[in-house]
């Protein structure tokens, strides 16, 4: 008998006024009973629109059917066929614009909590199932993966399962990319990321940290060294600034810097050697997930007031709905339809305020979004001592500038064949944010999968 409740089972979570003072995970996850109850809301409908909304096409109704029977490991196995990082994606995917957007139950009431169920299945498996995955038989082929973010890890995992000898090169000292330096602990516990990476290592994937490709080794050298194919999953880590006066004052951070200090370097822990400013009043400029993460971290570091300054209205906020909701509950103040004009400094070169302008929405632009227009004479000063710029990132030019014949878009994105991820260089593939510019974890994973399949066809297609 399906559960016909119009609402999703609520996810137990820490109280807003408790959690905005710690870095522990906000959402605590379903209990077994809640998971089974939620799974029963799925109608197992014939045309399965949810599956087409998932960038890696997880067989959603199949795994949910197993969950409804209480077969959590079986559910996990269904997901694992399509996704390498379910504990991550169940937490950070923007489900409302993907699988859950297309759920039939969402037409009248709330869609099935697909992300929450995926998360439950992955956590259940990770907590209980200890045996290492079977090591595949080597097929004698070597592939190099540049970058250990979601696209690189997925590509490496898929190839390792097929018997490839895979080496992942990571520039930082810890693997995981944005999963470790960008997304905070309270949204994605680092132990979960580590677990998924350990799983890859058990399958034989080698991870070399502290290796900056483009400096220590070039792509050409990797190919000369016996790697038959290279996958570039180096992401879009180059931060953008607004080019307004005062941006180099002390107390102005890129979100990447602020989040790297907090998440990767653990600057919030007393034992960490990495410093961070414990600001009193913080303005975060931007409206994406990165802006929400930065704002919520600033609050947890003890800021009394934290503002999100965004030039469009609430409807256009690109962040995940759940994160916007969480940010509001935690006391983040939204200054919508506002745009910074300059940052003001004191005599020591530190931030003392930010001058903003009010905006109104004009005609839709080429992308269909209504363009924000400045309201003349609406200047006002926001009294802040820290400004975090979260207005986007672009691909790092290092690989492009050190790889001859690698074609890129004007803005830096690597140009690839959509179906294969092949770049303008033979045997060199790319995917994820390095190709698309800043996007989502699951899209990056999808691109890693596509490239792994194409690499396999290229290297083993004739043999199999």
């Amino acid at each position: 008998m399906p559960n016909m409740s119009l609402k999703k089972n609520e996810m137990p979570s820490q109280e807003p006024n408790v959690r905005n003072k710690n870095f522990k995970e906000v959402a605590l996850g379903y209990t077994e009973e809640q998971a089974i109850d939620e799974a029963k809301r799925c109608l197992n409908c014939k045309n399965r629109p949810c599956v087409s909304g998932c960038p890696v096409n997880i067989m959603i109704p199949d795994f949910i059917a197993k969950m409804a029977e209480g077969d959590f490991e079986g559910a996990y196995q269904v997901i694992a066929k399509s996704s390498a990082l379910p504990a991550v994606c169940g937490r950070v995917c923007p489900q409302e614009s993907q699988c859950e957007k297309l759920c039939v139950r969402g037409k009248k009431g709330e869609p099935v909590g697909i992300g929450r169920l995926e998360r439950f299945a992955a956590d259940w498996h990770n907590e209980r199932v200890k045996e290492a995955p079977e090591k595949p038989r080597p097929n004698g082929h070597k592939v190099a993966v540049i970058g250990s973010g979601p696209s690189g890890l997925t590509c490496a995992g898929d190839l390792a399962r097929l018997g490839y000898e895979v080496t992942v090169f990571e520039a930082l000292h810890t693997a995981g990319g944005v999963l470790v330096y960008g997304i905070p602990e309270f949204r994605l516990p680092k132990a979960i990321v580590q677990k998924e990476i350990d799983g890859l290592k058990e399958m034989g994937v080698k991870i070399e940290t502290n290796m900056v490709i483009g400096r220590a080794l070039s792509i050409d050298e990797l190919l000369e060294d016996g790697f038959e194919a290279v996958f570039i999953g180096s992401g879009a880590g180059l931060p953008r600034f607004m080019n307004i006066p005062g941006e180099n004052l002390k107390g102005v951070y890129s979100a990447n810097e602020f989040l790297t200090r907090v998440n990767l370097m653990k600057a919030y822990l007393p034992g960490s050697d990495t410093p961070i400013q414990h600001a009193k009043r913080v303005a975060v400029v931007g409206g994406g997930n990165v802006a929400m993460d930065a704002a919520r971290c600033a609050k947890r570091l003890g800021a009394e007031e934290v503002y999100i300054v965004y030039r469009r209205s609430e409807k256009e906020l690109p962040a995940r709905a759940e994160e916007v909701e969480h940010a509001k509950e935690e006391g983040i103040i939204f200054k919508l339809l506002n745009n910074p004009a300059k940052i003001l400094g004191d005599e020591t070169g530190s931030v003392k305020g930010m001058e903003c302008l009010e905006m109104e929405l004009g005609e839709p632009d080429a992308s269909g979004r209504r363009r924000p227009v400045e309201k003349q004479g609406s200047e006002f000063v926001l009294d802040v001592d820290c400004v975090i710029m979260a207005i986007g990132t672009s691909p790092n030019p290092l690989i492009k500038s050190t790889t001859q014949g690698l074609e890129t878009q004007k803005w830096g994105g690597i140009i690839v064949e959509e179906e294969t991820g092949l770049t303008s260089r033979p045997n060199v593939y790319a995917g994820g944010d390095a190709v698309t510019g800043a996007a989502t974890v699951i899209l990056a994973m999808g691109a890693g999968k596509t490239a792994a399949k194409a690499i396999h066809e290229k290297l083993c297609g004739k043999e199999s």
Partner: protein
Amino acid sequence: MYKIVKKRELNPTVTLMEIAAPAVAKKAQPGQFIILRVDEKGERIPLTVADYNRESGTVTIIFQIVGATTEKLNHKQEGGFIQDFVGPLGVPTHTEGLKKVAVVGGGVGCAIAYPIAKKLHSEGCEVHSIVGFRSKDLVILEEEFAAASTRLCRRSDDGSWGEKGLVTDALRKLLESGEKYDRVIAIGPLIMMKFVCKLTKEFDIPTTVSMNPIMIDGTGMCGGCRLSLIQEGRRVTKFACVDGPDFDGHEVDFDEAMARGAMYKDFERHAHEETCNLFREVESHA
């Protein structure tokens, strides 16, 4: 983990270490830097490549003990290990086509200036090195500089080594006596580089400085190391870790760089005191 294959005290506050890091040693060039992390809880700090040996796969770093991390690093012994060591980073110093160069080094900046002087000298360039220290006890790399220079001017603040005075005084004297340089390369404290640039601007000599802002990743992903250049009256932001660390000294906004360098002063002072106390406690129990 990266092994410390050699450790030598150059003076009471400056230490040389050779680190086994074959991938870095294979590619490193003068002007580039590395980032290291002493231990699991450590911060990432940038240090310039002072030398390298491609055969033995080692990279030499020279550091001054100025805070908690350099204090911890200095407590590591030969044969011990550091957690992380990544590089080479940044763009190598351009030396092509230079026939006569004045290399100006101040304090521990001499550790960065030396490999550049050595490279220029080995390429047949006439090198005038002007090196300055606060006093005789702090002198490093004297013989090395002597071997890599056509002419060596020694200066100390208190006159205990070479002539009394600042490196800028020595450079002015050379310029006023009619020496013509294709380029001046200045490396040392920001304030020193600022005044060298002021001087060379007067004489219209192209000047390269090696900037040393606060860095985290060193790969261009955070912009913590950004600085302003003034190019044709316009302010342009650059990231020292990928665009530098070398810049045209006549374009750099030194005052902004000095302010940014002081961002974490209080935290750093506190961390250094704590680290020193910790070591004192450990040693008193030993």
